[in-house]
């Protein structure tokens, strides 16, 4: 297959991101400067975001057998790039602008690692082949180990990094084994080919089912679905706040996008046994995620558990896999992304600049409203959005998921969803009411007074505004997602 100019244009977002990573690396080798690395990365990512426009002109286009750049891929690429940009601005504030104050170690490599991980995410969402799936997943995961353990002199951060690495490696082994089994039966690694080869058989063979199940285990690990969720709270708690935000948004969105494409293109997923397995995982994730979150007094852990539950909700759409499902996943991921970015953004700004440990204990947020009303308003909107209350984006997402569930008549899953939401409300409300309670006397951390005038703060206010606007007038988002559907 010859590569023409069109192919390069289609790959432009990925190429720009990778080039930025190289450039930032060379820049660090030449002269260490926090501002320089940050500015370079932000410019690169913005260019990558802009290059989506020409890429859309040539889409859909197959670039080798590994990648396909279609509207679906472009949509998720945009999500990943935006999420990465947001995490970068948060990280800039978090590490501290002036030398000597804030993060004591080398700051520049964080941007490099995040750019690399973003490139992995871009590969992942355009993957149409098991090989590119694996490459993308590893390119996404390997820098993340470094990111999670970036504050390595902090015991928790290092522990979280190691834990994530060991479990992630085990997940990769499952993934490879599953792929091998699938290849043994289908004789091809391309998503579509697997689909067509296996289509004549009414019931996929045991080898295929086992292979799919093993791959599902690996991906469920990345998405922290029960029972593969055990790493989530620890890693969320240990990782520096902007990294946790990246892990919760860009990384999970990319993995879910590829999972969705795999399921849509390979009907092997439709076997009843696998559907049953997914249903059990979804119900367990919704219930366990919400129940365990009840007991948390640490905001980052709480968000970790809540993300388990939220991906349980998303599985409802994946299981339905018909009608509005692809659209619902798109809408839900956008709303989830905004919400989690906002929530972690507040945690990050509260812990800014870095001073040994993040400000993540719930009691540190007591009475925040009376000190930082607008920051509190942001967190309140995010909590309401996570709980799916009207006037916020989260409501539209949840509405979509319930719509898909009703359309596909998945009553058991809907039951779990309703119960899970009711439990969820309890801890989201607890966080919210804490913000408005009477101030305690002691306080350790607070966001800087001028947080709203810095890049991170402005980004956060924009995210909150968007979460509100999309909750009131979601039509533009729905149009966008409708155009980003998968064409089979």
């Amino acid at each position, binding site marked *: 297959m010859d590569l023409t100019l069109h192919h390069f244009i289609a790959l432009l977002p990925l190429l720009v991101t990778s080039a930025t990573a190289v450039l930032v690396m060379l820049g660090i080798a030449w002269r260490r400067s926090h501002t320089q690395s940050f500015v370079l990365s932000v410019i690169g990512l913005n260019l990558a975001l802009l290059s989506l426009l020409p890429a859309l002109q040539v889409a859909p286009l197959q670039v080798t057998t590994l990648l396909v750049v279609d509207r679906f891929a472009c949509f998720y690429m945009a999500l990943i790039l935006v999420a990465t940009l947001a995490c970068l601005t948060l990280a800039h504030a978090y590490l501290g602008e002036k030398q000597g104050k804030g993060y004591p170690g080398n700051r520049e490599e964080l941007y490099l690692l995040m750019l690399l991980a973003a490139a992995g995410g871009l590969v992942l969402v355009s993957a149409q082949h098991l090989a590119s799936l694996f490459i993308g997943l590893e390119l996404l995961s390997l820098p993340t180990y470094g990111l999670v353990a970036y504050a390595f002199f902090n015991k928790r951060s290092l522990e979280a990094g190691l834990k994530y690495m060991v479990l992630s490696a085990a997940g990769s082994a499952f993934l490879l084994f599953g792929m091998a089994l699938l290849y043994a039966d289908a004789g091809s690694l391309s998503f579509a080919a697997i689909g067509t080869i296996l289509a004549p058989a009414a019931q996929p063979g045991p080898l295929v089912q086992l292979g799919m199940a093993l791959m599902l285990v690996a991906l469920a690990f990345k998405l922290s679905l029960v029972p593969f969720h055990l790493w989530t709270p620890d890693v969320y708690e240990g990782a520096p706040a902007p990294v946790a935000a990246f892990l919760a948004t860009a990384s999970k969105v990319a993995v879910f996008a590829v999972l969705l494409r795999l399921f849509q293109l390979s009907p092997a997923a439709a076997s009843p046994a696998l559907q049953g397995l997914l249903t059990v995982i979804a119900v367990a994730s919704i219930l366990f995620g919400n129940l365990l979150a009840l007991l948390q007094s640490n905001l980052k852990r709480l968000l970790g558990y809540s993300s388990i539950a939220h991906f349980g909700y998303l599985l409802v759409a994946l299981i339905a896999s018909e009608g509005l499902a692809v659209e619902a996943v798109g809408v839900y991921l956008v709303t989830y992304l905004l919400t989690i970015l906002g929530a972690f953004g507040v945690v990050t700004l509260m812990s800014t600049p870095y001073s040994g440990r993040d400000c993540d204990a719930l009691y540190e947020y007591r009475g925040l409203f009376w000190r930082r009303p607008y920051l509190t308003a942001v967190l309140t909107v995010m909590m309401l959005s996570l709980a799916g209350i009207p*006037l916020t984006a989260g409501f539209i997402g949840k509405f979509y998921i*319930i*719509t898909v*569930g009703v359309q596909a008549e998945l009553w058991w899953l809907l039951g779990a969803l309703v119960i899970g939401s009711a439990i969820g409300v309890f801890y989201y409300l607890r966080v919210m009411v804490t913000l408005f309670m009477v101030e305690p006397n002691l306080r350790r951390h607070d966001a800087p007074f001028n947080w709203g005038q810095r890049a991170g703060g402005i980004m956060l206010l924009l995210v909150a505004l968007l979460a509100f606007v999309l909750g009131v007038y979601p*039509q533009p988002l*729905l149009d966008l997602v409708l155009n980003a559907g998968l064409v089979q």
Partner: protein
Amino acid sequence: MILPWLVLIPFIGGLLCWLAERHSSTLPRWLALLTMGLVLLISLWLWQQGDFQLAPGGGRDPTWELEFKHVWIERFGINLHLALDGLSLLMILLTGLLGVLSVLCSWQEIQQRVGFFHLNLMWILGGVIGVFLALDLFLFFFFWEMMLVPMYFLIALWGHSAADGKTSRINAATKFFIYTQASGLIMLVAILGLVFANFHSSGVLTFDYALLLQAKLDPAVEYTLMLGFFIAFAVKLPVVPLHSWLPDAHAQAPTAGSVDLAGILLKTAAYGLLRFGIPLFPNASAEFAPIAMGLGVLGIIYGALLAFAQTDIKRLIAYTSVSHMGFVLIGIYSGTQLALQGVVIQMLAHGLSAAALFILCGQLYERLHTRDLRLMGGLWGRLNYLPGVMLFFAAASLGLPGTGNFVGEFLILLGTFKVAPLVTVIATGGLVLASVYSLIMIQRAFYGPAKAEGALRGLGGRELAMMLGLIGLLLLLGVYPQPVLDTSAASMHGVQQWLAIAFSQLLSAR
């Protein structure tokens, strides 16, 4: 264009209250008063100039006194669709009136975070007005859920924790929120079920009331969907097995919160049944009617008995609400014009009398710093005006002729007797229990030996004016309810038609 403004004014007013707090602590109060006064004036003006012959009804296309429609979410056929008929107008009138009262009764009670308090108060009222006007099922659900959050804040931040420390205000608020949120989600599932059932038969994806009224439903599906709606409304009304959030929420809420809860929020459930529950699923509702009436009777007796056993005066009044709402439930499902008209009067009268009783409780609390009836007694001689006023509202609550409550309960019982004599007989027994708990409350609080000496501060001008206004309105409703009855006649006739058609079909099927 007047309808969207009716919804928007409280929201904008609330934001202004919040912003005004930094300038002065009384400015938010005046702004809130102005906002609710404006709502009240607009609704009075609408009442005065409309004739309210237009209302939706069974077997024809719905018609409205006033209508507003604008595309909102095209993808699902969702519109910003607001409309007004006699029933919604009366409910909005009540909302505006109680809104003014809840601002007034917080004048002394709320001294902290005044601006944020009024923001929440105004947003609750805005959400409630939205519920009373929404005609798109999505929009209805939107407002239905939206009013929960400010109510939660109102209870959780400005409430009182119980003296024994068993239930804190935050627990009570959370319980309220979870009950209504979970049942609301069940309703959302039912709404979507209805929308897709309609989509399968007609091929149109819509949330519009008028189109969904014509949905062809399989009987089993209709019954299930009806139950989904009923559960949400039953939690809010409340119907007995699902009522346990109510006493806690009331006991812990600040006065304005209790006034809004008892006066308006409970009425949204009755309104929901009249506007959506029955018209959308008339056949299933007719089939379900005996069960619903049974639940209503259970509520009347159970609420009255538990009210009798309370020592916390606010909990006592909360349980009387359960009992009174039992009458409303019976009246709604009896399906006669007389009983349905009685339901409207009962809703208005209970809104006024319960609000007044809660305000009086608040005033007692301001003076005594307790709500425990065991610590009261002998207050008649120590307080000016208040005991007498309370006696009047207790008498209203037990359904004394001359008050609106009597008209409401009498019409409900009279209308129901034709279709369900047994239910009526038992429910009438509830009236006896009502006199027992009302008089016991007065007896324990104001008579008997005094627990302490010395006169307490009597009612001030603001407090007395509120009470006299309410007494006047309640008497007016009791002796001359005709204007109200005329306003709601067409709407209630519509509901009656839906049920009548369904009942006759049910009879012929047997």
